């Protein structure tokens, strides 16, 4: 391994509204940085090749795969993870509807699914079922068959259109 691979780089970024500075190797993946350096274990590693979407986080408001993004690429960015969704004891409407509709079974894809859905509702507060399915089609769920996920996103969208708080997400 060449020395420039182990030489650490200083990065500064905002995660769920909190500013962090850290020294990271250039090859450190963003997902490993979030999990191992910041202790944010809600971002999961499913395939490590950018297909399953379990590692999805928000980078400056847009969903990205944190398993194919280096931590140094998040320099200066605002990163949102599932830990930023709930406001203390209060679940985000998406989380609450996922619970109510049983839109999760094993829960492994859930944090990423929630973030992908939040991005959709930011862009389109009143999606059709087909639009929800298309929006989450980059996130694999092996348990649910997506039906209750779709129902939950639609139910949360209705609550959010009615003015419900959307949590503490940065």
């Amino acid at each position, binding site marked *: 391994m060449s020395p420039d691979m182990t030489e650490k780089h200083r990065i500064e970024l905002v995660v769920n509204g909190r500013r962090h500075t850290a020294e990271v190797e250039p090859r450190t993946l963003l997902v490993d940085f979030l999990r191992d350096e910041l202790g944010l*274990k809600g*971002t999961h590693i499913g395939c490590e090749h950018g297909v399953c979407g379990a590692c999805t986080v928000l980078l400056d408001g847009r969903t990205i795969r944190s398993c194919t993004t280096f931590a140094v690429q998040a320099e200066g960015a605002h990163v949102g993870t599932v*830990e930023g969704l709930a406001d203390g004891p209060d679940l985000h409407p998406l989380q609450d509807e996922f619970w109510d509709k*049983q839109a999760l*079974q*094993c829960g492994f894809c859930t944090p990423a699914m929630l973030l992908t859905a939040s991005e959709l509702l930011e862009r389109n507060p009143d999606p059709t079922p087909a639009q929800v*399915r*298309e929006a989450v*089609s980059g996130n694999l769920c092996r348990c649910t068959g997506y039906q209750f996920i779709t129902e939950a996103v639609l139910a949360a969208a209705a609550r959010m259109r009615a003015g419900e708080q959307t949590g503490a997400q940065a």
Partner: protein
Amino acid sequence: MTGRDRSGAPPVRTHKEERNWVGKSIRRVEDPKFLRGRGGYIADLVTPWTLHAAVLRSPYAHARIVAIDTTAAEALDGVHAVITGAQAAELTDPMPDFGPDPANHTWRCLAVDKVRYVGEGVAIAVADSRYLAEDALGLIEVEYEPLPAVVDPEAALADGSALVHETLGSNCAYERTFDFGEVDRDFAEADLVVRDRLRWHRSGGQPLETVGAIADFDHATGQVTIDTNSLSFTSYLFMVAGTLRIPANKLDIRPVPAGGSFGSKLFATKPAVIAAMCSRVAGRPVVYLEDRIDNMSNCDHHGSDRIYEVELAVMRDGTLRGIKIDTIDDYGAYIQFGVGHHGNALAQVTGPYKIGSVRYRVRAVLTNKNQQGAYRGFGSEVNNWMLEQMVDKAARELGMDPVQIRRRNFIQPSDFPYFVPTGNVYDSGNYGAVLDEALKLADYDRWRAEQAKARDEGRYIGVGLISAQERSVFSATEFWFWFDEPGAPVTSMPESVTLKVDATGGITATLYSCAFWGNSPETMVAQLVAEEFDCDPHAVSVVYQGSKNGLPATGPGGSRTTVMLAGAVEGATAKIKAKALRTAAHLLEADPDDLKWVDGGFQVKGVPEQRKSLADIAVVLHLFKHSLPEDVESGLEECKVYDHPYTTMPSSDRKDLGVFYPFMGHACHVPVVEVDVETGAVTFLAYAAVHDCGTLVNPRSLAGHIVGGTAQGIGTALHEEFVYDADGQLLSSSFLDYQIPTAMEVPALAIGHAETPSPYTPHGIKGGGEGGRMMAPAAVNAAVNDALAPLGVRLTELPMTPERILTALRASPGRAL
């Protein structure tokens, strides 16, 4: 069948009519932590002090290991140990293996002299981080001498084939033919024999979380602690201690929630063995967590891979008389669970039909592929597909409607309990009612009209209809009835629960097999406890105990969890209530016979103000010993080991396998598809599914299993395949090539529930966890075949990829392309 020995049946139960919690779609008690990203999966438990193991994998399907040089890897900074297969064989014994002849197809945690499939481990690096461990793998030099790969399972049986295991002397690990009933008579009397060759290729569970373990081998105490997302068959974990060469009472395997399993984490002990071996060498805790390629190529849990030659004896009026099944199953390089997959098939081999005789020949073949393990259905879903294909083909040859031929052959409600030719019993069912409901839900007649209209327009719409079984709650006998002289004819397959009522009346349930892995054991137990004690299920606390101090348990598999936990909860509750009753009677100075349980406490019959709540009773039992009769012990905690409620022994000639899978669920699936004959693409237009799993505990959870299982079944039917090329290379070793259905491939289902309670289980519950995957492959295949019927095309091979559909169309005389 008549004349079966019905002794051994448990008493028929009377179920209570009104239930407060069983049957309600409450929010799952497991979910809040997962919604917040605080699931506590195995990867989340890794500490900075933990070392990381990574495994070097064989690039060859079949090769001798000539030499391994680990010098450079060991010299890398941050590397703590490098272990080759030969060294691993000095540190560990072979893996736990339930196969037919383990000494002749020995399976170890790493390959020793030769590799037997692409992805088999040859060496391990242990380092400060996973990054460094993988760097070290890149520095290990392995010299291989490639051997001819054994890939095609039929060729593997031919004389002169290369051998996967030389000591076995052939590539056939097991062969036997069973006859049940009067097969020759039924075929001699048949008006028609329907024949087919069918091919089911291998797929797998592929949960989004891989298998992993964190082990701490403590040299000071000799204690080995392993946290893992695969803890099952708790009673058999002494075998893991054997592999690690430690006393069984020094091993504690602790359950951690799993990010999905679908069978693929069933007794997945290799990562635990690897982590423990590495920890022993490194003297520190070690995590071994598969990456995706590890899991896809080396998980030991690929699904069934079968070739069928089938003959179905049929009468002109559509009566199904007998079936001859000859199947070759490609098990891969090892055969850890033996041919248990075919036991699952034999439990329901004749489906919901009165087929009177069965000849079942199975040949288990070893090839240079990752070995089979468990995938939702465990081989019975393959049988469902085979049987429904044959019934549809019979209907086509007889000019009958698929609904009509099924109705003609259904076992009727008055026939239960019904013994099938293999000796297994179906406890209860109402197949006609499920079919009626499915036809209604599917709007079947309208779709038949749409189909006719579409055909006039040159479009190919197909309506699939299948009726099939979901056996639940297996017995131990299916592990050994294969052999006339089994090595270990075990008969226990229990599940246990401890209930503790604390001094405030709060209830904690302790479970003893694997933690949550996507099913809902905590919700099930909470609802069952709430039903017994009239409390809020969300107030019930559920915890998991590790193996060392655990009670006997088996864990999920064969859709057994809810039924078995219900039995254990019922038994523990009875003990708690007996003690509480005695205490309440003492405190109320009443005769116990004059008390009854009402709304969370005991009260004097007819005098409701004379009562003690569970909390009143519990506080006395915990804190006021001297207020109790002298022989009453302090505390209120009871456990129940619930053994399998209905098992009978196989006959010595194996013409009757006994009762081994008695609680029989049933479903009818009706998908509607359109096939694009230019591209081979299949699009869903509608999908209806009606399941009968007896009494429902949480209907929405069961619906989730139906939809999720159907999505997996659609993957099996259309998309997913572990493809090995002629050299044994695994071509689909990423999610780019192994295509799991996305939200765009899975239709919205119309779901219906029927409830035919089991007469033998608490509340009448049957298992339903394998859900839609038992049915969907057969149903989708039927729909595609129905669509292409005007072209004279039938697909007989899964998955029905666009390429296979186009190939079938090109070969069809009905269509010139």
